[in-house]
């Protein structure tokens, strides 16, 4: 711990209109080290990070804030502007939102230099190319002239990181910089953060996922309700967690946890692989040679898979690999160019909607963003009544008891019945979506990235719930995710998608234990693991 101290923060408190968001936090960022601040949404970690840039927007008090030897406790706006960008900077979360779609990325990146340096125009362009090259952007001179919409996802992430680095800051804050990225992009960002650390910069990394930070962080501070509940060297926090909450977060990471073992503390303990009765009969779902093109772009090519009853098939791949198009064809929302879908041994697609109306309620869907799938005018109770009554009524009191049963099944309080889904938390909304999908007692659920928008700890409770429902009802799942650790924990069978094709499929143990394809091996290598 002899490294130079870059940031010293003591007793930081931030409140918004009298409501405390951060209480008495102290932390130290050292040169050549990564400090990870871990906690769920609302724990105050982003507010803490923003306070280090003078951007918290609330009432701030601290007994000490030193940034690279400068007292930053009582800086005014223009003094903060001088520090931001060239002493301390931040990598933003969403590359599509953070980069102006109408300007060349090189100009976006160069803007920071205009404010902070006396470089000439030519020198600025030179510096932009340098920094793009330093984040391994292919063809930096060409890319600098392109707009963010013309770049691939990986290039956009690189541009975003370059934007934070152009002023050569000594401290870089990464606020959920890997959230919502698929495994390849996550690996890319993590590698860049590691490079920053090796260059001797200080990195403050903010995440809700302990697995993401495990291999990079030198120290971890766990935040909850605005306080740091535990902090220390990474190995100590991961291997000997002292605080109950740290243990919860560790347990919530699905990678390496056996199938059906609970991830959340509220999950009922059960034998690691319970006896499941596999109902005799046809396959729950089978797809044969599904193909779909949009213009010249081949989205899905010759995809076939089988889902036996009562089991889960995990469909994994990066964004753009064709997972969602496959799901939409399976659900009959998109007509395949060729190929068929059979549900419980009967033809489901391609068919005209009226021809499959009998089968419709045998298959349900859960989306990444449940709120978008609810009619905004309906309350929780009305949504479920509508689902139970087949759309005939949203107020029929005779369904009241069934509504309560559904809410109980997904562990939501029946007090929420009159609430609007907008007033629910992310986890509660997903539970409600599950309850609605269960209303017609489906045999198959298609789950498209159902937990990708949730914090790891909330994700754990939703995954436990899905496990429990499968054990109780024998519902089969087609589980789509970019997150390998979730797929590993949830699936009996796994199919790996790449560029519209299923390149490898088999049992979870065989795919994760002995992958045959290079691409699968690459994905697995990029997967953050705790265990």
């Amino acid at each position: 711990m002899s490294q130079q101290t870059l940031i010293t923060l003591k007793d930081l408190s931030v409140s918004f209109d009298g409501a405390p968001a951060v209480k008495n936090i102290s932390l130290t960022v050292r040169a050549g080290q990564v400090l990870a601040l871990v906690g769920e949404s609302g724990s105050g970690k982003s507010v803490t990070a923003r306070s280090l840039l003078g951007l918290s927007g609330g009432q701030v008090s601290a007994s000490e804030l030193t940034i690279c030897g400068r007292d930053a406790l009582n800086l005014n706006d223009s003094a903060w502007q001088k520090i931001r960008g060239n002493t301390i900077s931040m990598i933003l979360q969403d590359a599509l939102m953070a980069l102006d779609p109408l300007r060349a990325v090189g100009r976006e990146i160069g803007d920071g230099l205009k404010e902070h340096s006396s470089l000439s125009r030519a020198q600025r362009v030179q510096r932009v190319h340098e920094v793009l090259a330093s984040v391994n952007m292919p063809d930096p001179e060409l890319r600098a002239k392109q707009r963010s919409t013309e770049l691939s996802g990986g290039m956009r992430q690189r541009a975003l990181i370059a934007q934070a680095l152009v002023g050569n800051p000594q401290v870089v804050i990464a606020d959920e910089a890997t959230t919502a990225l698929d495994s390849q992009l996550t690996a890319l960002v993590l590698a860049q953060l590691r490079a920053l650390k090796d260059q001797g910069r200080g990195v403050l990394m903010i995440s809700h996922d302990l697995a993401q930070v495990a291999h990079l962080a030198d120290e971890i501070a766990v935040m909850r309700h605005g306080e740091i509940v535990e902090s220390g060297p990474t190995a100590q926090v991961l291997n000997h967690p002292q605080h109950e909450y740290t243990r919860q977060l560790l347990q919530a990471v699905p990678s390496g946890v056996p199938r059906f073992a609970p991830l959340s503390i509220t999950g009922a303990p059960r034998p690691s692989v319970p006896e499941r009765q596999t109902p005799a009969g046809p396959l729950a779902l089978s797809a044969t040679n599904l193909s779909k093109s949009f213009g010249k772009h081949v989205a899905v090519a010759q995809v076939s898979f089988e889902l036996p009853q009562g089991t889960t098939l995990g469909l994994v791949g990066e964004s753009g690999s064709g997972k969602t198009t496959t799901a939409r064809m399976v659900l009959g929302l998109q007509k395949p160019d060729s190929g068929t879908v059979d549900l419980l041994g009967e033809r489901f697609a391609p068919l005209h909607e009226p021809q499959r109306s009998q089968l419709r309620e045998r298959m349900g869907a859960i989306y990444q963003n449940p709120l978008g799938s609810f009619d905004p005018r309906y309350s929780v109770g009305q949504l479920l009544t509508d689902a139970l009554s087949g759309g005939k009524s949203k107020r029929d009191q005779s369904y009241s008891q069934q509504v309560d049963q559904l809410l109980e099944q997904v562990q939501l309080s029946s007090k929420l019945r009159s609430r609007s889904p907008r007033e629910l938390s992310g986890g509660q909304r997903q539970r409600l979506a599950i309850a609605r999908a269960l209303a017609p007692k489906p045999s198959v659920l298609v789950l498209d990235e159902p937990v990708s928008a949730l914090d790891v700890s909330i994700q754990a409770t939703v995954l436990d719930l899905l496990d429990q429902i499968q054990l109780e009802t024998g519902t089969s799942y087609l589980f789509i995710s970019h997150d390998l650790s979730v797929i590993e924990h949830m699936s009996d069978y796994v199919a790996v998608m790449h560029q519209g094709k299923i390149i490898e499929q088999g049992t979870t143990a065989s795919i994760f234990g002995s992958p045959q394809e290079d691409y699968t091996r690459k994905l697995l290598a990029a997967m953050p693991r705790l265990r």
Partner: protein
Amino acid sequence: MSRSAKIFSTIVILVWLLMALAPSLLAPGDPLAINPTEAFQKPGLAHFFGTDESGRDIYTRVIHGAGDSLAIGLAATALGMGLAIILGTVAALSPRWLDEVILRVLEALYAIPSLLMALLIIAFTGPGVGPAIVAVGLSTAPGYARLVRSQIRNLKNSEMLEAATVLGRSNWLKVRNHLIPNALKPLMALVTLGIGQAVIWAAALSFLGLGTAPPAPEWGAMLSAGRVYLHLAWWMSLFPGLAIVAVAVSATVIGRALGGKVKSL
């Protein structure tokens, strides 16, 4: 928009409704009663707003005129909106060629100024309250229809509708339960604005002698009657004119406020 403007507008609209629904409560007299000996009386205690050339009480006539303006405003807007919902929904949900046909027709209608179109319709039907309603209703429909169409088209591709498809809802249930109610929600503000507009148009048609015929108490017709005596009896035109302005402005203020609310949701 200031709070006081909203409160004031709400009061104006409430008074207008009261005037329209129970005119005798505010003005017990007969709006048609002639009293030639009291013609052209200035506003005063006996006649709050004065009297006209036949000695009719302007105050009583303004109050009783609210009924016609409300009826025309509401009925015309309802007619326009009803047509718009049908046309807009059909256009949004039909195959491309039919959508294009409906759109071109709507655009052609949209190109004709609404008041001109109303005049055209009255040229066929002849003047009267009924024709005025039809004329104003028909001429507002194209504008609303285009809005309904774009709302429904956005909603048609929403996850909400996909979820309804997956739950096995028929097309009819999707339209009735989700598409139309959600498309109309943001239009409520426009409807309020539209009522204010319809009141003005109804008054304009009557002013031209194409709506409610004199001596029936109608604000536009009263304005027109007073026009001849403007140098002699300014109050004959002023008070009905104020009534039109107050109602139209208030409906607009409330419509704007509702519009802001819908946007912020």
